[in-house]
């Protein structure tokens, strides 16, 4: 079993819908939680970054981390066709050489159709 599990989808929604993306993880040492967006033939781009538990909002995007259940979520409000991409969750330990050693989920393919 992988340390970070993510439903690969694909997920298809109409424009304007609220999108919910989720991951679970098994490593209790993870302290940093991130969501990356990856367009086709491009590298991952950091969307949201959270330390420990809690919520973080940035425009149409909200990230939630529940360390008690080892569950992380990304919500996209008023989804747009330009949001169509693969969304990757990532987790990392704190300190030393661990901080950039991200463990990624498989990625969820999202399509927002007009």
């Amino acid at each position: 079993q992988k340390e970070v599990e993510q439903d690969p989808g694909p997920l298809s929604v109409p424009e304007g819908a609220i999108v919910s993306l989720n991951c679970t993880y098994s490593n209790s040492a993870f302290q940093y939680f991130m969501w990356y967006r990856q367009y086709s033939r491009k590298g991952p781009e950091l969307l949201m970054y959270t330390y420990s538990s809690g919520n973080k909002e940035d425009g149409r995007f909200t990230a939630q981390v529940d360390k008690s259940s080892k569950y992380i979520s990304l919500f996209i409000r008023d989804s747009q066709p330009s949001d169509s991409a693969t969304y990757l969750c990532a987790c990392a330990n704190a300190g030393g050489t661990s901080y950039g050693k991200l463990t990624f989920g498989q990625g969820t393919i999202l399509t927002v159709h007009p």
Partner: protein
Amino acid sequence: GAGVSQSPRYKVAKRGQDVALRCDPISGHVSLFWYQQALGQGPEFLTYFQNEAQLDKSGLPSDRFFAERPEGSVSTLKIQRTQQEDSAVYLCASSLPGQGREKLFFGSGTQLSVL
């Protein structure tokens, strides 16, 4: 440049050939990472440099994989005697020192196909 630059963009190799993949990180970013992304999967960590020092190479799949960053800027990932299972996108990422160093900036990757 403004972002992480990787070259070549695409590389086709015959099985058994050696390949070298280049990464030019964002100026001022002391940390540099290599990741491997198989088709339909998330990236997997290969190795990490802080300046010229390779501090973690635990993700390198075999001794055929070798990475260097001799002057603390440009890095090269070398794969010797390539095998078909090496086919993947190789991503380079860099980050700033200090606070926010967990935030990685990725390049577009090199897509390696081994025939």
